[in-house]
């Protein structure tokens, strides 16, 4: 039964294509790309994701089909955290992956708000790289990630 069309996850397509944090007005607060796109394409994707996600309400699912992929997203106050993955990927695992990431940010920035992400954009990248790398989940333990971030913070 290996690689039966439709049923199998046996494809090397399963990885995160990009992670986006946008506010309601569509301003990008983080864009992390794990697939090659040129600059125009990135801009288009950012706009499309914003258009797709912001029209949905709380009764809707946290998943949207998007081109040949899907977006798993969750809204925190005015910020949308979006992860683009393959259609066969595990929705709930990525949905909680987002939440895990947000809890780390919250702890690290002490009640994170949008401005923290703006002024510390270069630190946000470090947080992302600790938790997601090469489009895969790298580390899921909040304790371990925060310990590492505080260690880095103490370095000059």
């Amino acid at each position, binding site marked *: 039964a290996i690689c039966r069309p439709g049923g199998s996850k046996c494809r090397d397509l399963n990885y995160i294509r990009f992670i986006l944090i946008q506010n309601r007005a569509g301003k990008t607060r983080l864009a992390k790309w794990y697939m090659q796109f040129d600059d125009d394409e990135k801009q288009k994707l950012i706009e499309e994701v914003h258009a797709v996600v912001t029209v949905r309400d709380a009764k809707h699912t946290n998943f949207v089909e998007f081109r040949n992929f899907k977006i798993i997203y969750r809204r925190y106050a005015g910020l949308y955290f979006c992860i683009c993955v393959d259609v066969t990927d595990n929705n709930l695992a990525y949905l909680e992956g987002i939440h895990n990431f947000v809890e780390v940010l919250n702890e690290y920035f002490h009640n994170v708000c949008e401005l*923290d992400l703006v002024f510390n*954009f270069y630190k946000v990248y470090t947080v992302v790289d600790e938790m997601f*790398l090469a489009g895969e989940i790298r580390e899921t333990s909040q304790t371990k990630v925060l310990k590492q971030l505080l260690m880095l913070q103490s370095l000059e």
Partner: protein
Amino acid sequence: MPAVSKGDGMRGLAVFISDIRNCKSKEAEIKRINKELANIRSKFKGDKALDGYSKKKYVCKLLFIFLLGHDIDFGHMEAVNLLSSNKYTEKQIGYLFISVLVNSNSELIRLINNAIKNDLSSRNPTFMCLALHCIANVGSREMAEAFASEIPRILVAGDTMDSVKQSAALCLLRLYKTSPDLVLMGEWTSRVVHLLNDQHMGVVTAAISLITCLSQKNPDEFKTCVSLAVSRLSRIVSSASTDLQDYTYYFVPAPWLSCKLLRLLQCYPPPEDGAVKGRLVECLETILNKAQEPPKSKKVQHSNAKNAILFEAISLIIHYDSEPNLLVRACNQLGQFLQHRETNLRYLALESMCTLASSEFSHEAVKTHIETVINALKTERDVSVRQRAADLLYAMCDRSNAKQIVAEMLSYLETADYSIREEMVLKVAILAEKYAVDYSWYVDTILNLIRIAGDYVSEEVWYRVIQIVINRDDVQGYAAKTVFEALQAPACHENMVKVGGYILGEFGNLIAGDPRSSPLVQFNLLHSKFHLCSVPTRALLLSAYIKFINLFPETKATIQEVLRCDSQIRNSDVELQQRAVEYLKLSSIASTDVLATVLEEMPPFPERESSILAKLKKKKGPGAVSVPELDDKREGGELNGGGDRGPDTAAMSASNAVSRYVLVASSCLFMYIGFVCKNNGVLFENQLLQIGIKSEYRQNLGRMYLFYGNKTSVQFASFTTTVSCPGELQSHILSLNVQTKPVEPLVEGGAQIQQVLNIECLTDFSEAPLLNIKFRYGGALQNLSLKLPVTINKFFQPTEMTSHDFFQRWKQLSQPQQEAQKIFKANHGMDTEVLKAKLLGLGTALLDDVDPNPENYVCAGVIQTKGQQVGCLLRLEPNGQAQMYRLTLRCSKDSVSMRLCELLAQQF
């Protein structure tokens, strides 16, 4: 824990960001940025060497400016300098700049790789991770070349820190994805697989992604990972909710790692080792059991994490498709979710059940949820959930519930969202066809489909209903009656008129006995729609009318009158005008017998894969329609043929067969035939346009000059031409490659423009390329399709040979299928010189003194295609008394003999 204050460390950066945020307009922002860029540029160019802090600050500002969407064309060198700093914060900004603004400048790549190399060998875990993250983020070929051999060493070395291992594993994965040829695991394989046993769960989490990817490519080399994965999973699943400490998420032990383990197992068939298999089944049962336990927390995070594992376990169960007990349990669990208050869960349950429906073990269990699913289709607020419900109904459909499901889908269509209508229409059409027990139900369904959602009924759908009606005589009378009734509606969709025109034209006689649908009533009904229809539909109706004249001689006078009126016979559309003229002439001069032969009922279509199924496959990718295929195996699909028929060539030509009925440009055909033996001349002419051709051929290449002459005194606007090749029409294998340059869009009155086509013959072919011409003449859009006279014989190279050689070759080509022969009456005079000229024009060598009978003609040549050469021998035997010819062809390729024989028989 101490929180990070805003922009600590780099005050200048924080000030700059504040300034930008305070800008009231885009202009002000650009002004502020330009000022900053000038400042940074002067600092970088200044004589005073910058300290590391300033360099870091300015590079970080440049990065911020870039992320705002502005171009940055300097600072790369300074960023590279930061890489060799000893301070973490400086190095980090340097690496970040490089990762975000990848530059393929080779000089820099060398420097960057050098810095990475130093950091990788620094034994400082923080620096090593920075370097590895940079490689993972950039992942270029150059980096793979430099580091692909080094990273596995770091990954498995005993003294490597855990966090470095995590990064190394994923870094290697990235390089493997970009340059698989450079990442050679060989000797490392076993040690990498054993990372699944690592004490550090983070290392396992990272390494398993690498192992999964490598297993997909080399399943045999990595198959030991199966038993390791099962035991790791088993330990996690059986651990208490607090055992794993750091890796417990809302009382769920290691949810992400569990999902990844279950996903890795989906790369393999069920474990062969009984003990391993038993342990795995136990894990899966435990996961299913836990779903029934009361939640340990009310938080959605808890249930999401738990269900993430559950859905992944169900995926694995479906992947194995061998444990009926687990499949049915999975189905029952999903059934509970169908009514859950969380939309996410309802959505995922519908989605997952869709794959369960295709398993023979759970198909029946899925079917029991039909009412809930129908209800979801009717009541869900989120369109994507309704879509999944529709998918599931489609997947669970079989003969037992087809009528109910099709009826529900039809009624949903009346209010369905525009975004999913077309797909719904296709699905209804497929189910109706697939499970049609009585074909009257099928006809009713499709006509309903056209009535409800006519705009979304693609050509494939209505072509298909016609194919089926033509092929099944038990339904023809019913179809005629039903479509006749449907056409009574004051407003009916144009697709209905098309189907009506076609079916009544073919089978109107079956209902003509009823005075309520007498021939004239039928005709008047069709003709009442005529003026509201588009040109292609009108063309089809005209064909239906001429068929009426044959079916019902009593309608002849009425129809001739219609054809004769100015709006037909002088219609500005050439196609319509041509049909009107030809049909009128045909009906006036042809005898009843000739008419009956020409207008005979369409022959049955060859049975082949449904063209709509092919379309749905194309739309959704191969996986999406696997369900009806499963059914094929079980019940022997009657109309769809075998499941996986590959590219939809058959479907395409089936629709072509119908479309040919829709568009015939017959007089052009005569012109086209004239070009078989000549290369230059006039291809087409009407009162607006003349098209001349000059062409030359060498080997398998040809060049054709097309001359478009505007015969009027008015400008043609938007003049465009397109050429489509036989391969595009018939299959995905292109046999001709035709390159064109676009023509000038304006052709002045009286002017002539020229277009050059470059032609390459890839393999032998029988269909000619089509030339489509569109232009505006006085506001009216003109549309013309012509066959271009590119025939296989154009690629002939003449071959001279002696009588001996000729007959030797002739004997070699003696297999029955290599020969094609036709005996036919002479259409033209049998003048020797004319015949010789034609045979030379064909492109072959005309061989003298070969045939013992001097009356006969023999020719030899080789057809040059890109892929192969086809040797051809020809013999033409005239019989002057009987005014007949016998034409024999023998070629080294069967299809060529056939094609040449057909072409030439029209020439003499």
